[in-house]
């Protein structure tokens, strides 16, 4: 087996934040004596990513995703534990390490605001000493894949958010990094721009065999790109596996959509079959325990004038929401 591209072992990060009560008295007291509190952002996380793999890194706001990505790219020192990227320890920020990675953040701006993106690209060419021929080839490939041929000649301040993001992504990949950390690369973009970036990421991964760790609030990004997801919540690892098994594992429910005729005329007591999520004139949506699926569908078909019926897993959004709503002290992992 090849050594992993990303290896994280018992990684932990604690921030020290100063705190005080509201009010003038508290403000005066804090002038003389600061009280601080340790906040655990990342709590004992371990996982590995193989070269060429795309992993979706999921969690609600404040779960510790960005903190983890910053530790992996060398911007934060871990409080404890270890991470290695192709054998390098990120916090040492060795040049050889930095040349292999890139970190793209939705809100961060690497491009010089007043200049066309092409000028910033030239600066990157010098920083990474990319040979002229290779630079031209990479630039041509990136501008074609992202469709930014005309945009890179316009001052960055005149670009729309989506256009700027595409240029940011291009600039971050000019040195052909083999490990990409993408933090919300599609945030704030319209559906078309989102899809374009998503397709681009997939194409880059195929062409260069790059390893990707990607966070996104858009499940469409994750479904389209990641074969595997790692879920963290309150800084702890909740799940590591295929997206489909995340749904299986965390959703003990199925959703049944029934078309019953005529629904309005009869006052069926639908609550006896399961939880009614939605109901209108002709259809009803029920949530039922997964284990009871066969028994309940049997009863429904026998007892009601059913014209149509579909049984589905809940959407990934629903599952994720359910996972994130689980209390921190009782990890969802413990569930069957």
């Amino acid at each position: 087996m090849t050594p992993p591209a990303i290896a994280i072992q018992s990684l932990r990060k604690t921030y020290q934040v100063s705190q005080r009560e509201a009010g003038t008295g508290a403000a005066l007291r804090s002038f003389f004596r600061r009280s601080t509190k340790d906040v655990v952002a990342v709590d004992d996380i371990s996982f590995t990513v193989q070269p060429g793999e795309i992993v979706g890194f999921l969690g609600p706001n404040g779960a510790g995703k960005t903190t983890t990505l910053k530790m992996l790219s060398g911007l934060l020192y871990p409080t404890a534990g270890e991470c290695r990227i192709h054998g390098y320890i990120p916090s040492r920020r060795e040049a050889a390490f930095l040349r292999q990675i890139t970190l793209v953040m939705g809100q961060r701006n690497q491009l010089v605001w007043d200049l066309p993106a092409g000028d910033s690209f030239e600066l990157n060419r010098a920083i990474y000493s990319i040979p002229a021929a290779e630079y031209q080839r990479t630039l041509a490939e990136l501008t074609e894949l992202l469709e930014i041929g005309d945009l890179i000649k316009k001052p960055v301040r005149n670009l729309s958010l989506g256009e700027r993001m595409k240029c940011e992504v291009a600039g971050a990949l000019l040195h052909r990094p083999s490990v990409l950390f993408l933090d919300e690369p599609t945030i704030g973009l319209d559906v078309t721009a989102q899809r374009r970036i998503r397709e681009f990421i997939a194409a880059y991964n195929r062409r260069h065999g790059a390893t990707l760790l990607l966070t996104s609030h858009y499940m469409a990004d994750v479904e389209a790109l990641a074969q595997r997801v790692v879920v963290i919540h309150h800084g702890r690892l909740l799940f590591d596996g295929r997206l489909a098994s995340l749904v299986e594992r965390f959703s003990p429910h199925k959703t049944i959509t029934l078309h019953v005729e005529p629904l309005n005329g009869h006052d069926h007591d639908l609550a006896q079959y399961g939880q009614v999520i939605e109901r209108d004139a002709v259809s009803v949506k029920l949530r039922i325990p997964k284990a009871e699926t066969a028994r309940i569908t049997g009863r429904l078909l026998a007892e009601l004038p059913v014209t149509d019926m579909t049984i589905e897993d809940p959407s990934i959004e629903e599952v994720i929401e359910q996972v994130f709503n689980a209390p921190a002290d009782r990890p969802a992992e413990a569930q069957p």
Partner: protein
Amino acid sequence: MISVWGFYRARFKTALAVQLQYRVALAIWMLGLVLEPIIYLSVWTAVAAGSGGVVNGFTVSDFAAYYIVLLVVQHFTQIWHMWEFDWVIRQGILSGRLLRPIHPIHNDAAENIMYKLLMLVVVVPSVVLLVLLFQPVLNPPLWSALAFVPALLLAGVLAFLVGWCVALAAFWTTRTFAINQVYFIAMFFFSGQVAPLALMPPLLQTLATLLPFRWMVAFPTELLLGRLTVEAALAGFAAQAGWIALSAVFTLLAWRAGIKRYTAMGG
């Protein structure tokens, strides 16, 4: 292998392109550049007139020469990164620079050098204008005029290192304004800006000798004016070298400690 020279060349180009977009700012800056020595000169001319045309051996045209040379030296030794560094940290701009396989100091150094070279288009006409207006007398011995060049270069390096180190305070506090203010007040008094150091009380002169500011500004200025003996010049170079070594070590240590502390806020 990272080519630092290649980076500086590319960074010069972007800095140039950015500066050329701000023509009005350039004009205002030129106005300030000319006004400052005019104000000092007017004050000292009035003082000299009140004491028979000479103050402690400085005639009116000596003052003119002093402030015009001072303008040039200040131009080559100015540093402004401490005003921006706090913002660079809070906005996460530093994070972007830390991801590059080149030390962030190179970005600031390249920008600093570029700006100084570029602004010569403003400084040179300003100096010509002031020379025509105030008729300074400048008659240094040859060795002194030649020694001015390395003294100015070392002063530029020293000012950059000390200034960069002051900027690093932003790692520890968000109120860097107060620190910067102290730095520039010390600069104002001890670098020979408010008055030639020879006119200062002995205590202040001693302090100026112990602090780095004199070696950033007053020393090269006095060298070009021909006011220093060979011994004083050699002592000045030694002081510059010593301060550069000291501030380089201190900057390195402060950078390491600051980066440890840096927690990449925001984002």
